[in-house]
């Protein structure tokens, strides 16, 4: 009996001591300068593999530096602001451009313009990416945001199914899109599907073509916005409601929790179209195998569209250097390695990423995305809005999911939106 109490105590003391002496498994950096990189990848993703190689090269070429990586995963977006607020030392943070802009912005970041000047990075970065990243800064010509991985929002389609259905030209208008869906149904496939995580991409793509980016930005951040009463919303509901009625959405659409639709419907080859970003071929590579014929198209112009058919949505993951960084020079050098030809080639080959530098050819799965970017007349932010409020999206996505699953019709959708957006 005595022993038990003594054991408990001994356990307490030793555990407390262990925790006291090795807080969070601190690594011994020695005399080297540390570069702390918070990645938006988890360690088991292929991107992490490529970046690990890049880091190894960096450490070999720059023996004065050592890199400490936190493979934070996508969750990095939830915690980066509070982490920086609390003074956590982070030399490079990586997340989606919308998160970096919305949660951090210039107040939280270091202007890298001087550091970048004259580096290999500045020389090799593609013009399009440079103007995209600089376009978000207040001067329009500073480097706060470093492009890491660009992406295109598009309707991906299965070319084999399109061929079987006898579709020769890609639809450019909503009416042609409906014809195209009917042909796919006739061929025995489901035309289209979407996952819950990308719900907003569909209706903002439709509405954006009519109302433009400023309106979508306002609507998606303010539920009280009168724009929610715009007739375009009712028209959108009517058109998608009609698609549901005609069976143009795969059975279960509106119910798919990411990535159910992507994996079991689109990648398995039973559904012809799926709205997503250009990271998709990489995500489903294990399921599709090599034979899958990837196609990508512009979003068809609905009636009353003010934007051209050749408008596409795009975005980019950004690297940024927060104010709490202690080693800006090291960070910029590491970024240089990440955007080097070698790393970009690896990312392209192993993860099917669109490169940020010129002179690399896209893999076959993304060839159509490349064509889109080349032929496009206008690029707009992902979902036609640089930021989106969680609360507004919570309401609109739930109603849109009900519309797609057939639980409510177009009128019901308009009613729900009117009731809940106030």
């Amino acid at each position: 009996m005595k022993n038990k109490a003594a054991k408990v105590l001994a356990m307490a003391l030793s555990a407390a001591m262990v925790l006291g002496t090795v807080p969070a498994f601190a690594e011994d950096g020695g005399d080297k300068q540390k570069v702390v990189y918070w990645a938006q990848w988890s360690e088991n993703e292929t991107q992490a593999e490529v970046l690990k190689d890049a880091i190894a090269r960096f450490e070999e070429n720059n023996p004065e530096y050592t890199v400490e990586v936190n493979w934070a995963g996508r969750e990095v977006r939830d915690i980066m602001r509070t982490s920086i607020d609390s003074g956590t030392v982070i030399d490079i943070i990586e997340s989606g451009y919308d998160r970096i802009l919305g949660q951090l912005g210039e107040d939280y970041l270091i202007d890298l313009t001087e550091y970048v000047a004259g580096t290999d990075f500045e020389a090799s970065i593609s013009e399009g990416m440079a103007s995209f990243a600089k376009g978000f800064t207040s001067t329009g010509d500073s480097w706060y945001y470093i492009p890491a991985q660009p992406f295109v929002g598009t309707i991906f389609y299965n070319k084999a199914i399109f061929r079987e259905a006898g579709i020769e030209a890609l639809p450019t208008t909503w009416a042609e899109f409906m014809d195209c869906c009917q042909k796919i149904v006739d061929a025995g496939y489901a035309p289209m599907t979407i996952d819950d995580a990308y719900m907003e991409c569909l209706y903002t793509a439709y509405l954006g073509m009519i109302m433009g980016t400023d309106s979508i930005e306002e609507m998606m951040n303010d539920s009280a916005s009168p724009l929610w009463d715009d007739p375009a919303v009712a028209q959108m509901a009517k058109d998608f409601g009609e698609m549901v009625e005609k069976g143009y959405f795969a059975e279960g659409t509106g119910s798919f929790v990411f990535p159910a639709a992507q994996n079991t419907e689109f990648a398995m080859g039973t559904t012809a179209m799926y709205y997503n970003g250009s990271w998709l071929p990489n995500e489903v590579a294990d399921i599709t195998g090599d034979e899958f014929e990837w196609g990508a198209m512009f979003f068809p112009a609905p009636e009353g569209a003010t934007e051209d058919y050749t408008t596409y949505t795009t975005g980019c993951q950004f690297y940024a250097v927060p104010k709490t960084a202690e080693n800006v020079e090291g960070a910029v050098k590491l970024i240089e390695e990440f955007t080097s030809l070698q790393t970009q080639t690896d990312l392209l080959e192993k993860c099917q990423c669109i490169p940020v530098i010129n002179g690399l050819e896209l893999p076959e799965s993304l060839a159509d995305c490349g064509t889109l970017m080349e032929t496009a007349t206008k690029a707009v932010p992902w979902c036609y809005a640089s930021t989106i409020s969680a609360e507004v999206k919570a309401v609109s996505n739930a109603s849109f999911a009900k519309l797609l699953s057939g639980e409510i019709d177009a009128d019901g959708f308009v009613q729900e939106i009117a009731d809940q957006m106030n």
Partner: protein
Amino acid sequence: MKASVRICEAQKRHNTEQFGAMGLKSPIVFTDGNGGVKVKHRERLFMAGYLGPAVLCFLIIFAYPLIRTILMSFFVIPGISSPVSEWKFAGLDNYIGMFRNGVFLASLNNIWRIWLIGGALTLAIALFYAVILASGVKGKKFWRSAIYLPNTVNAVALATMWLQYVFQNKFGLLKTLFTSLGWTSLAKINWTSPKYLFWGMLLSYVFGSVGYFMLIFLAGIERIPSDLYESARIDGAGAWVQFTRITFPLIRDVFRTALTLWTIGAVNFFTWAKMFSTRISTITVTPVYFLYDKVFGGSGTASAIDAGGGAAVGVMIAVIVLIVHVAINRLLKEEVYEY
């Protein structure tokens, strides 16, 4: 659900009773033999040294944050770690804004249904299993452990199991089962659709909670002397009569405890809501999820960290707990049966 909160409710009752009794018969006290309780200086130091750390922890982690949260709920606060000098007094604005917020209202609607429907199901199923286990089945220990097993599994793993397998729309357990039984209308239910997602979440939560309440009921039933049942049987009472006339009245107290524990768990409902919608959605949102999203997370990309509004939600949750506590104590007054 936080089990310690669930348990402490019962424990609290237990202890107040015990200390009430101790108040009558004075507890064992070390005295100096003069009759009165005269605590020496050294002993006072000893007591302070032993009691102090616990009290200090309590003051730091419970008392002070509680007061501060209440204060925060009346201010507009720009960032979560903003110093008090940056707070702006807002009166009741945070509360008014909360009740105008469609997502918060949806969370209230959800939590109410979770509490009522989920509670009725969980307690009924748990009681049912407890009665079976107490009726002298063979291998009682095995069945008891088996029924409690889901409660020991990590909620993240459990929720993933439900979402990715049981509710799966193509090869899921329910789909396969109902199809093979020929119950086509049930097989057609798509549990992750907006119409059923909430019910799917509730069902899996209920299944994960039954074991715990079963144990509580079982312990209550096993305290009832068996001769009561024997004499009832001699009088010709069947199983149902025995349950309604003996078992249920005699575990009323336990039932009240279970109800209180369920309430605390339901009000704090979070893990399952987060697992069933990684991004906040009106279908599954609960007040705690709403608060989490407002203050810590951002499912959105806009930088709307609203610590004051979050604090107001916290205060609301505490008020709801308080109201339900009082209601349960009023409605189910303690009645003592001598046996």
